[in-house]
C-alpha cells in the first residue's frame, strides 16, 4: 500500500481542519461580540478535549486489539472503562480532593480502577488452561457488570443531587469551561500515545501471535506491561474527566484498519488522528442535533457503536476469534 503516506497526510489535514473549524459551529452566533468568550473559553477547550479524549480512547482500543488479537477488545468491552468509572465515581462520592504531581485524585482513582479491571479480566481469562477470546470477552462483561453494580450501589447511597450528577457523568460528556480539563487530560493522552507510537513494531509482532513475537526477539512480558500501563493510563485519564464514552476505541481503529491496513507504524498515527476527529464529529452532532439542548456524547457514540459492534460480529463468521 504505497498510498498510505497520502492517507495519513489526509488524516492529518482533516484533523487539523476539524479542530480549527469545529469551534465555529454552535448555537450562539459568533457575529455577536458577546460570544467571543464563548468561543475561547467554552468551544475551543471543548473541541480540544474532544480531540484528545477521542485520540486516547482510540489508541487504547487499537493497543488492546493488537495485544489480545481481537477486534472486539476495547476499553469498554474489557471492562477497563467501567473500572475507571467506578474509581472516579468513588473518588467523587467520597469527596477526595488531593492531587499527586498535579494529577487529581479522581484521575488517579480512575486509573487505579481501570488497572484493577484489566488485571482482573486478564487474570480470569488466563486462569483457564487455554486462552480464548470468548473467555476474555466474557470475563470483560462479568467484570464490567461487577463494577457497574458497585457504581449503582454508590449512586444508591448518594443524595438526589449527587446521584443525578453521577448519572449524567456516566453518560459521558465533554462540557468544560476554560482549559483546566484539557491540561488535565493532555499529559495522559500525549505520554500514553507517545509510548504506543514507540512500540509499533512490537505491536505488529504481538498481533501476529505471542509465541511468534518471542521467537522474533520481543520481550513480550515487558512490552505487554508497558503497553497495558500506557493504554490504561490514557483510559483512566480520559474517563475521569469525560465519563465512560464507549465504542470510540472499537470504531476508530477498525475504520482506520480498513483505510490504511494493520501495519501499526501507519495505523497508530492514523488512529490517533482519526479517533480525535471521530469524537469531535460525534460531539458536534451531540451539540447541534436537538439544539439548544445537548445530547450526552456517550449516547451518540453508543448509538453508532452498538450497530457497528454487531456488524463486526456478523462480517466474518469467525470475527470473535480472528486476529485484528
Amino acid at each position: 500500500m504505497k498510498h498510505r503516506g497520502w492517507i495519513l497526510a489526509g488524516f492529518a489535514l482533516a484533523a487539523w481542519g476539524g479542530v480549527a473549524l469545529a469551534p465555529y459551529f454552535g448555537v450562539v452566533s459568533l457575529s455577536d461580540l458577546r460570544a467571543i468568550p464563548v468561543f475561547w473559553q467554552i468551544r475551543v477547550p471543548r473541541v480540544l478535549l474532544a480531540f484528545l479524549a477521542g485520540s486516547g480512547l482510540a489508541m487504547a482500543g487499537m493497543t488492546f486489539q493488537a495485544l489480545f488479537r481481537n477486534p472486539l477488545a476495547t476499553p469498554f468491552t474489557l471492562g477497563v472503562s467501567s473500572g475507571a468509572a467506578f474509581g472516579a465515581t468513588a473518588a467523587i462520592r467520597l469527596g477526595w480532593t488531593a492531587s499527586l504531581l498535579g494529577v487529581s485524585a479522581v484521575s488517579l482513582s480512575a486509573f487505579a480502577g481501570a488497572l484493577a479491571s484489566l488485571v482482573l479480566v486478564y487474570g480470569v481469562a488466563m486462569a483457564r488452561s487455554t486462552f480464548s477470546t470468548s473467555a476474555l470477552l466474557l470475563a470483560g462483561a462479568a467484570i464490567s457488570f461487577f463494577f457497574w453494580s458497585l457504581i449503582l450501589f454508590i449512586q444508591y447511597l448518594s443524595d438526589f443531587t449527587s446521584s443525578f450528577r453521577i448519572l449524567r457523568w456516566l453518560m459521558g460528556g465533554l462540557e468544560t469551561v476554560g482549559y483546566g480539563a484539557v491540561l488535565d487530560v493532555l499529559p495522559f493522552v500525549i505520554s500514553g500515545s507517545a509510548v504506543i507510537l514507540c512500540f509499533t513494531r512490537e505491536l505488529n509482532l504481538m498481533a501476529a501471535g505471542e509465541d511468534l513475537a518471542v521467537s522474533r526477539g520481543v520481550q513480550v512480558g515487558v512490552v505487554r506491561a508497558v503497553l497495558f500501563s500506557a493504554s490504561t493510563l490514557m483510559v483512566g485519564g480520559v474517563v475521569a474527566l469525560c465519563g465512560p464514552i464507549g465504542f470510540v476505541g472499537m470504531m476508530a481503529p477498525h475504520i482506520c484498519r480498513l483505510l490504511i491496513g494493520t501495519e501499526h507504524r501507519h495505523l497508530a498515527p492514523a488512529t490517533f488522528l482519526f479517533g480525535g476527529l471521530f469524537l469531535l464529529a460525534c460531539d458536534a452532532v451531540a451539540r447541534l442535533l436537538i439544539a439548544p439542548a445537548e445530547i450526552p456524547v456517550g449516547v451518540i457514540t453508543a448509538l453508532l457503536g452498538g450497530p457497528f459492534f454487531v456488524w463486526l460480529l456478523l462480517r466474518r463468521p469467525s470475527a470473535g476469534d480472528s486476529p485484528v
Partner: protein
Amino acid sequence: MTKPILDVAGFSFAIGGRAILRDLTFSIARGDRAAILGPNGAGKTTLLKCLNRIVRGGRGRIAVDGLPLEDYSQLDLARRVAYVPQADGRSAPFTVREFVEMSRYPHLGPLAPIRPQDSAAVDRALEETGTSGFAERPLEALSGGERQKVSIAAALAQEAELLLLDEPTAFLDPPRRQEILRTLADLHRERGMTLLFVTHDVNEALGQASRVLALREGALVFDGPSGALVEAGTLEKVYGHSFVIGPHPRSGRAVVFPE
C-alpha cells in the same frame, strides 16, 4: 571438532508438577537436519518452545552456540534461532511482505527504519520459498500451503542459523507437503542451515532427516541416524504400536505403515 549449535544436557521441564520433558540429553551439530518424532503429548512442541525460550524455566542446561540459553538476550537468541510455529488456522492481519519484514526485528535498532540489507533479506526469503508472486496479498487470502511457505519465509528473513519447525507439513495435501519438504531440502543445501523439525509422519522423518530424536512421555527413547529407526522394535518402542516396514516400490528406500 566444531562445537554443536545446540547442546541439551539433563534438561527437564514440568507444568504444575506434571513432568513434560524428562532428563533430555542430546546435541545438534551445525548443518544437521534432524526430526523430532513421538506420539501425541510426548512433549515435542514443548521441547521446541523451550529451545527458543518461548516457554521459560526447566532444570538442566540448554546451550546455543556454546552459550547457555540464559546468557542470551531475547534479541540475541532471535539472531541465532528462528521458529516456524504450528499452523493454527489463524492468520495474522498483514500482507505477506509486511509479515516477512517483521522478522527483521532482531536486526533493527529501536525505531530504526528498514535498511536496504533488510529489504534484500526479505526479497531473498520470498524468492527462496516461491512466495514473491503474492508478496502484496493479505495473509488471510492465502491457502494453507501458501501460508506455510510464508511462515517459513518469515523465519528465513530472520537470518538465523538454526531453524526450528513445528509440524511444517501438518494439514497440507500431499502435493503441498512435497512442496514444503522440497523447499526445506533446498534451504538446507543452499543456505547450509541447521534444521530441527517436529513431525508426526515417520516416512517424512525417514526421507527428510539425517538424524531422528524420538520422545515418549517426555523422555528421549531414540537418538540416532534416521535409517536406524526401521531397525526391529524401535518404532514399537516409540509409539507402543506395531508397524510394517517395506521397501518403496520405486526407490527401494524403507517405508513404514502402521499395523
